[in-house]
């Protein structure tokens, strides 16, 4: 059975942090609610350290092969808490002093826990539970601001999420009906004997849930509205943390599904449509949040390329993990810039930013060009490895499409950067209330994006192992 509670220490620390933060929120006077923030931060830091220490150990499955602790899980255990840590830092100005500040931390921690569990789930039932744990806190988080935008965000997210969740559970049932087992190590033997049609429908239904979490077409409709409506911190979390869990979960589950169900082609098409649609929609945006929302959709398209070739090349997993890490830090950096400048609601309002906020501008340039894939940033290494993997896996056409999309994406990222360097600063709003923590997060994330790109050697080596079951 291999029941080792201590093997789940990183996950348990997140849970403990969430419970403690909740208790703090319930019993501390309002003036001292910020303790919950420190509890959350220490839980995340502890989980990060525990995850990093555990990553050095050997890969294993625990609790009767239902949960895998391998490179993929370890990556999520490091990237998810690190990302959430950056996000609660960038959100701290907005969250501090709010009546429900402890709730923000609790929900963020639970969402992170869900994302980590998603990435490690090696059993369909664990996957279902992890999906719910990763999704339900997000509803609360999206509506946390208690304004009309937040209400719309929460409602859209909830409706899509509930639908996707039901479809996903149906898919899990079908796969169980076909194979008679739910553990991945047994599914790999059981599914080939099952009727191909049942398995194919089951996989498609299962993917509905994971694609919803990742924000990929056709389950992407919530992304722009949720990102625009939610507070910037919540938006950063919505577009970063669940993607990590969902894409690793998709990789893990798809590698046990027989290829003759046609899922590689399906995923390739989903990837192609996602990146193209995200890019095309981003062209017309004039609000930074919406632009970033569509940009995250297109990024999922590139990430899904690695999932599409999961069965045909062993380059897919390292590529996926390297890209995820780079994407997480770069995307958070871009959202941090938005959070640091709450009084600049449209792209045109970023006029003359370079003169007034050189550090923030530098962070914005690095993060946006990083999202394009300009070397030597982390996403460049991600794109390089993902493109290599996709080509190696026999999907050269997808690489060509992704390259065309990358070139097109440059256009809208530059639409944001250009005002920053032009215009005079005279007629601008006073920016005494610039959010300092968010500025620090933006600069840190930008520096990390460059550092991850320059120091990509050890990173790519560290994630270069296969998943286990």
């Amino acid at each position, binding site marked *: 059975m291999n029941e080792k509670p201590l093997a789940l220490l990183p996950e348990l620390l997140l849970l403990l942090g969430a419970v403690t933060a909740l208790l703090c929120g319930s019993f501390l006077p309002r003036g001292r609610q910020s303790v919950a923030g420190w509890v959350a931060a220490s839980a995340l830091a502890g989980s990060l350290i525990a995850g990093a220490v555990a990553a050095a150990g050997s890969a294993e499955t625990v609790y009767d092969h239902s949960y895998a602790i391998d490179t993929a899980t370890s990556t999520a255990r490091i990237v998810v808490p690190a990302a959430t840590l950056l996000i609660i830092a960038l959100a701290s100005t907005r969250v501090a002093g709010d009546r429900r500040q402890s709730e923000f931390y609790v929900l963020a921690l639970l969402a992170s826990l869900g994302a980590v569990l998603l990435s490690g789930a090696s059993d369909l039932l664990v996957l279902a539970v992890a999906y719910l744990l990763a999704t339900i806190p997000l509803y609360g988080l999206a509506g946390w601001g208690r304004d009309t935008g937040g209400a719309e965000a929460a409602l859209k997210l909830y409706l899509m999420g509930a639908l996707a969740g039901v479809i996903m559970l149906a898919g899990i049932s079908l796969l169980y009906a076909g194979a008679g087992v739910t553990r991945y190590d047994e599914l790999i033997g059981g599914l080939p004997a099952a009727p191909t049609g049942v398995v194919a429908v089951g996989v498609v239904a299962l993917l509905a849930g994971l694609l919803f979490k990742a924000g990929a077409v056709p389950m992407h409709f919530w992304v722009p509205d949720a990102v625009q409506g939610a507070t910037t911190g919540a938006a950063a979390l919505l577009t970063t943390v669940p993607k990590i869990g969902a894409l690793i979960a998709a990789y893990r589950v798809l590698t046990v599904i027989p290829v003759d169900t046609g899922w590689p082609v399906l995923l390739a098409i989903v990837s192609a449509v996602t990146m193209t649609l995200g890019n095309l929609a981003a062209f017309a945006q004039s609000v930074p949040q919406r632009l970033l929302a569509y940009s995250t959709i297109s990024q999922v398209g590139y990430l899904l390329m690695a999932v599409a070739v999961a069965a045909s090349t062993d380059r897919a997993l390292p590529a996926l993990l390297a890209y995820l890490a780079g994407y997480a830090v770069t995307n958070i950096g871009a959202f941090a810039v938005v959070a640091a400048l709450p009084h600049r609601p449209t792209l045109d309002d970023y006029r003359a930013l370079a003169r007034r906020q050189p550090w923030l501008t530098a962070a914005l340039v690095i993060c946006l060009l990083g999202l394009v894939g300009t070397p030597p940033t982390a996403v460049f290494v991600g794109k*390089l490895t993902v493109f290599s993997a996709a080509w190696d896996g026999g999907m050269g056409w997808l690489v060509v499409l992704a390259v065309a999309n990358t070139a097109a994406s*440059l256009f809208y990222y530059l639409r944001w950067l250009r005002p920053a360097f032009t215009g005079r600063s005279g007629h601008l709003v006073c920016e005494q209330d610039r959010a300092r923590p968010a500025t620090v997060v933006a600069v840190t994330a930008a520096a990390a994006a460059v550092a991850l790109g320059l120091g990509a050697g050890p990173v790519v080596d560290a994630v270069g192992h296969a998943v286990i079951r």
Partner: protein
Amino acid sequence: MLSLFVFAPAGAALVLLLWRGLPDRVVRWAWVGVSAAEIAAVAALWIRYTTDGGAGIAYEVNRAWIPGAGAGYHLGVDGLSLPLLALTTVVFCACAVYSLRHGERARQFAALFLALETTCLGLFSALDLIIFFVFFDLSIVGMYAVIAGWGHGAQAARSALKFFLYTFVGSLALLVGFIGLFLAAAPHTFDMVALTRQNPLAGSGATGALVLLAIAVGLAIKTPTFPFHTWLPPAHTDAPAAGSAVLAAVLLKMGAYGFVRIAMPMLPEQWRHYAIVAVVVGVLSALYGALAALGQTSFKRMIAYTSVNHMGYIVLAVGAAGMISGGDAPARAVAVTGAVTGAVTQMVSHGLLTGALFLLAGVLLDRGGTYEMGAYGGLAADTPRFATLTAVAAFGSLGLPAFSGFIAEFQIFTGSFATVPVGAGLALPGILITAALFLWALHRLFLGPSKHALSSAADAGGAEIAAIAPLLALSVLIGIFPRLLLDIIEPAARTVVELVAR
């Protein structure tokens, strides 16, 4: 040591960027100082390279970078890259000297140019495709910032965007080609030396052709050749003078250099098979560039189009070099080597002369407020120093003997006539048209009745002469003592030809 040489300007750029209180004068002189030190460094590299025998790769640095992705930090210098490294340092120093008297926001401008210098030096010394790509992309970002931030004219932002999008598409096409080479190699690697040795796509049919297509399109956009040149005239017209000089003199060479460094040695079979395409494109570029330049009324746009013409000769030469196979007579190999040598010489020559011409165009705009040649006339009497420099640069650029351009074009044409006589014959009128258009331009600017209000006070100043005259002097030096340059290029060109012929 090579790394220090490459990254020193970037380090200086960082210092300038962070040191906010630095006075403009100090910034400008610091920039000149760093650029001069880089020239001294490249001179030292050159002397040691020639005394060590002058062949093969020297000063190699080879460290692991992303072993999991097959990319290494591999730099080195040989007879193809050393002339271009020298050109880069000279042109950047000329821009630094020129900018002693020009340009606003000196601190950021100097930092940007120093960073740009690092990307150019890094690209020309890269021996790993990913390192090459990194510097290729960063040079685009840097140049975009130069045009968008310091460009003049209402269209500057638009031209900058066009430049960025075009060349970025080119760089991505390159990346696709690089990935193709990477996956074909066993073991998978981006190392240029290993890929050249392996010739990984030999006999691979359509894959090899597609990889060459991707790489060639990427390089052709950057070079630029007809029909991918449309980004060039607006970018040049709206860029500041120093930006134009660097763009034309150094950045365009990245494309041409890529052909001799990557496309030809790594894909020899495909290159030989499709060399005729390069010949045709080269001839078209040479003729189209010359004819389009002839039709311009703006001095700067005219120079921009002559760049298309001059780069066309390079593409013609590398195409002609593909018309060779292992069983050919030695005489043919010698002729083809001459063509490749001429191509590299042309890169240097074009860099020196066009760099000078663009700086002169900057002087013209500074004094007269327009590039329109019709607005001047009679400048020879009013601004004799400016007129002399421009005339010398123009004569050099049209290929007059005793200038580097003659050496380059002579070799290109003798080499090309041996393998593709028809193509070379068709490109030859390009030289005549270029000569005509330069003479006509000189005529409009300097002779006839004066239509401007410039006095002799508007003549080229000390800093401008100090920036431009050395470029022309180097061109004359190469024109009179070509062996100084050819001795270092020829062994490398011979190696390229051997690699193509295998």
